[in-house]
């Protein structure tokens, strides 16, 4: 059910596009839904981040992963246990760009009554490959939205296609992302523990992204679409002046691509995909370990009922005196 349900949903979504095109709903699928999805994404993303930010960070709780700053002759691990803002920035950058924590991953196994820990970098590698190729592909697509393609974009495209295979040139990221998504799906299917913890919400984005990539690959390399038409539509969308005449000339598979992407964008703020925003706010990572050096303020700190020394001495005065422990009141 957890796998079947999201798979069926994605299939229905694809069928919806074909039905829509048959019914001539080009404007809906080419203009209305993309605009709506983008709006939901942007507003939803901001809303979620603001909602998180509205809850304060009452305590200073970094997870320290190295030697703290203490005596001057003891070497501090300034990145894994930062005491300065720069250290935190580097720690966060490593986390966001290189998935530092995932790189630590180990595999625990029981062998003849002994517990052994092996290196396990596949999740890290696949995760990194997936996210980076997704980002590069997204950036590559910016060329559709610009009159003159900037040098940076051209460089990225050049690097991505440097193998110089095929016409149009083959992008490596297309293959990488397909492989990575496939791996991330298969591990949920075949690793018993991972299968056990997976929810429908874990399979759905994988299927959706697989659909988006597959439709993109098919349209670039196999079923050619009216690529100039796509550019005209994209430029129109950017200028809030889309040309309705071009819509019907582009080709169905493009709309599958665009619709699944729209669904992904609209689904994003309501899902676990928000880890994109959340990772920056994680108090175990984005705080420096200086809580003995600088006082951390809890905005909702309130006075509590305590058992005072006076009450304590009242309870034990005689015993304290007999034991020769000094008291306040004789």
């Amino acid at each position, binding site marked *: *059910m957890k796998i079947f349900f999201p798979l069926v949903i994605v299939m229905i979504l694809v069928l919806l596009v074909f039905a829509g095109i048959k019914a001539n709903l080009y404007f809906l699928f080419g203009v209305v839904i993309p605009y709506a999805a983008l709006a939901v994404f942007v507003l939803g993303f901001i809303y979620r981040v603001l909602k998180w930010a509205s*809850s304060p960070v009452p305590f200073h709780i970094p997870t320290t992963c190295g030697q703290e700053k203490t005596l001057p002759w003891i070497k501090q691990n300034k990145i894994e246990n930062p005491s300065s803002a720069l250290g935190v920035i580097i720690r966060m950058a490593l986390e966001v760009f290189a998935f530092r924590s995932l790189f630590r991953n180990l595999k625990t196994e029981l062998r003849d009554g002994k517990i052994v820990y092996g290196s396990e970098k596949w999740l890290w590698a696949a995760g990194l490959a997936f996210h980076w190729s997704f980002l590069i592909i997204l950036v590559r697509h910016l060329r559709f939205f610009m009159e003159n393609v900037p040098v940076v974009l051209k460089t990225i495209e050049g690097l991505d296609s440097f193998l110089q295979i095929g016409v149009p040139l083959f992008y490596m990221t297309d293959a990488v992302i397909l492989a990575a998504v496939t791996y991330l799906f298969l591990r949920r299917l075949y690793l018993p*523990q991972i299968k056990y913890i997976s929810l429908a919400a874990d399979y759905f984005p994988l299927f959706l992204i697989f659909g988006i990539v597959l439709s993109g690959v098919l349209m670039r390399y196999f079923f050619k679409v009216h690529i100039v038409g796509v550019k005209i539509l994209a430029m129109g969308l950017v200028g809030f002046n889309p040309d309705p005449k071009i819509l019907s000339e582009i080709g169905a598979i493009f709309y599958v691509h665009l619709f699944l992407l729209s669904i992904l964008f609209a689904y994003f703020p309501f899902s676990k995909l928000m880890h994109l925003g959340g990772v920056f706010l994680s108090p175990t990572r984005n705080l420096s370990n200086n809580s003995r050096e600088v006082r951390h303020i809890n905005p909702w700190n309130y006075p509590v009922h305590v058992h005072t020394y006076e009450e304590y001495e009242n309870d034990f005065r005689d015993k304290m005196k007999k034991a020769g422990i000094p008291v306040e009141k004789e």
Partner: protein
Amino acid sequence: MAKLPKPEELSKIDLKPPKTDWMDTPVEFKEDMYCWGAKGKNLKVVEFPNARDWSPKEEDWKLPENWKEIVMEAFGDRLSKYRSFKLFMDICVRCGACADKCHFFIGGGDPKNMPVLRAELMRSVYRKHFTTGGKIFGKTAGARELTLNVLKEWWYYYYQCTECRRCSVFCPYGIDTAEITMMGREFLNLLGLNIDWIAGPVANCYMKGNHLGLEPHTIKNSIEFFLDDIENITGIKIEPTFNRKGAEILFVTPSGDLFADPGTYTAMGYLMLFHELGLDYTWSTYASEGGNFGFFTSNEMGKRLNSKIYAEAKRLGVKWILGGECGHMWRVLHQYMDTWNGPADFLEVPKSPITGTVFENAKATKMVHIAEFTADLIKHGKLKLDPRRNDHLKVTFHDSCNTSRGMGILEEPRYIIKNVCKNFYEMPENTIREYTFCCGSGTGLNASENMALRMRGGLPRANAVKYVHDNHGVNMLANICAIDRATLKSAMEYWVPDVQVCGIHELVANALVMKGEKERTLDLRLEPLPGKAEKEGNE
């Protein structure tokens, strides 16, 4: 309590999850895997709601009628108060990196002890009550209603987490299960559902100043008992002070070290070190607890117990505070105390009167860890040490969860150990420093009725100790935590019987050559020092 199975039996572990989906697998209370319910009288002492006697074994937990409203109201409240809690409810992608990092999962195989699933126990309720998707799609969206069964499941598993934070080291978003189980325990405490092994010490600490409930004269007596032993060993008579106004330093340490060995030897170590330095310090009977079982109860209770340290420092007019070897004590002191009960503007920035070192890293909290203090002494050559006295020991060091992952005090204890004994061996790198394993009994789970849970949770640590025992002949497991000293002793007796447990200041005091001492023949355990056994026998 049933008889604990033999180690060979207990170490047969299957890490494969069961056939039925976790939501369809009701919680089963397994023998020796959980603690007794809190007694009403202990909760009444600290004015907790719904105080009553109850038993987790009974079907009826005698819950208040509106228990669900109580929990849901608190749930909403904590979401608005803790960004960590809210964020960690939302952003987990269930990548599974944490799954096999928990000592309870590794040593037990119960899938709900995978940190991700332990958190899902709560996230599922969060989705049902606080997210639109969960309300609409229900179980398909991983959402479920808070039922009595779910509440019992929370109780069982949130008292099967020692909040050691090992999972948070591996999580790509730093999701910290401790933040989730701490909330779980807050909710349960609103319903009077603490465990008595925590509620008892909390009540004791509130009224008498320490977890063990030692009254002022008893504290003095216990310490005087150590002084007799110290005099036997060294010929030196030590006269510490209690509740003395005007002392330069207030010394606070967990009360466990005053009560049972091997912690008592660590306490003797402190007394000997401070005497040798001529330190102007005092013990306090009011602030006679460094640890904080309130922290395992609720944020508020943690703050209430912790308040005594600053209050006493202020009353006695000391300049700064020195803290003994303890794990969660230091998580609290390092990450919570100043926020709760500060600012400590009535104290001075700690400065070692012996070396002149100013502890800049503690300039706000004004509390120094004794490992920092002693490492500084050794570095400046202020201690005369004879490490040969520890030659009968082959030592390894267990990093405590809280001091490694909630502070980062890794090198100081190692530096001290290497200076006071000659045989030091590290355990495998995936089991030390930030990767260290819990003793299996932290966060107040060091009771006796849950021994199977404790031994299972202690297995990953014991397994690593066994490795250095087998390969290097290690026979002493040093640590800087009072709970470790109390609990690893049982874990070692069970899993690696030839290994003993000690605090590092026991090793320091053994090696410490004191002014005017007689020739020592005994170590702090009153056992013959290496090479001295025969001489003693001939006399």
